[in-house]
């Protein structure tokens, strides 16, 4: 599966919201391919009957009581934000809607 195409790299950059130059894509493509080739040993393993581990230490049903607590950080956060107005964060026009 490895050996990555330039197009794939460009598509991934789009998903990751990175604006890569052609030069950067040219550098990244072989580097990423090399790493993926190194991962080929894992890719080759037959692990159908092996369960995945997403947490090294098995815990379950971790929750907290439904009790409100005011963090009181609003002003500090807004003061340090790139752009705010009327207690809100300002963003440029949003083209396209959320999924």
């Amino acid at each position, binding site marked *: *599966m490895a050996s990555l195409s330039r197009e794939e790299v460009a598509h991934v950059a789009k998903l990751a919201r990175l604006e890569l130059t052609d030069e950067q894509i040219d550098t990244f493509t072989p580097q990423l391919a090399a790493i993926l080739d190194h991962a080929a*040993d*894992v890719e080759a393993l037959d692990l159908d009957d092996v369960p995945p581990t997403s947490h090294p230490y098995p815990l379950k049903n971790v929750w907290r009581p439904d009790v409100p607590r005011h963090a009181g950080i609003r002003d500090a956060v807004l003061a340090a934000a790139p752009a705010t107005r009327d207690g809100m964060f300002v963003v*440029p026009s949003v083209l396209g809607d959320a999924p």
Partner: protein
Amino acid sequence: MTATEIAAAVRAGERGARSVVEEHLVAIDRREAELHAFNLVLREEALAAADAIDAMVAAGHDPGPLAGVPIALKDNLCTTGIPTTCSSKILAGWKPPYDATVVERLSAAGAIVVGKTNLDEFAMGSSTENSAFGPSKNPHDITKVPGGSSGGSAVAVAAGFAPLALGSDTGGSIRQPAALCGVVGVKPTYGRVSRYGLVAFASSLDQIGPFATTVADAAALYEVIAGYDERDSTSIPEAVPTVLDRLDHGVSGLRVGLVRELCQAEGIASDVASRVAAAAEALSAAGAKVDAVSVPAVIYGLSAYYLIAPAEASSNLARYDGVRYGLRVDAPTTGEMYDRTRTAGFGAEVERRIMLGTYALSAGYYDAYYGKAQKVRTLIIRDFEAAYERFDVLISPTSPTTAFTLGAKADPLAMYLNDVCTIPSNLAGHPAMSVPFGVGDDGLPVGIQVMANALDEVTMFRVAAALEGALA
């Protein structure tokens, strides 16, 4: 003076915290310019904190187990009102409105934060060369790297800037720089130390841990930061056994396994290998039963790690989008603002890992990459479990080589291979630490890695203490 000695003297009123801090600030002034351990030195804050400690002692109160002990914090630990940059342009100048849990515990224990230390951007690297603010240098030879990603913390302790430091370890980021700088570095069991307030790199692997010049100091710091925290859902809800009072229990009768796959891994230098052999002899001389053991699945560790860690990172680092905090590069639309901000804000290695992780998670590749890697984790855990049925601890090199020259490893894959010995413990969530054990042919420090089963930090520390004692 070690951290434990300082704390004892300050608590006893024999020594003022202010003089302790001043002494370390002098050490910082002497070498910080050439070593670049810190992104920020908190001179005034540290002196004020010291005065507060001295006032407590004068008033007959006990400031705690780390009374007056200067400590350096990796700059990916949140500190209220104090810049926390992760050595990234995208967070330059960002001041968290809250403290990490470990930071709260440190001040409750009387420790004094003297600065925020340099790291590979967002903890992605093994040399601290990926810092947006320039590399740190190895105090033993400034042409060499200190290792990474917690390079600044390792340098701070090795150079005597602070007797203690905190780092974070996702694939070896505490143990490897500890080894390269000749200090003690500890990665506790995953979930032992709260991650609340640690800026995430790879959430299922990240763990905060101590740097110190002695095993006892590392244990003292571990005892302060370890323990359940309701603000971290992956925090282990169990009492933490004390370590300090068991350090001198020795190793006689302990079963020590030399991990074959790690001792013979690709690129292990012969001088490093012979130090590991010497460590094995020292332990058997101290009464341990040392034997070789095979943990077959660890050979897949590096590949699994470089799929899992970037995948989680690609999601964890999505939030740096210029909307709420940190860098924003203006643009006519929000989409372009995202693209320009992230491209301008992230360095090449971070971009590379975000790309890799995005690819590993993307449609059609999940099963082959991320899914497979999560299953490899299961294999590694199983093989470790088998090994821990026959052994109490496992040992290996921490790093394949001693400190390498700055700029020597331009190829990303070559750099990743540094982590081959440290990664398996992160994937398994097991505790592991690096303890200095002599020097290599180049006279630079070599570290021995001691690994233990989940929650068995005590045995791990005992073995490390024995190795430390064998050198003395």
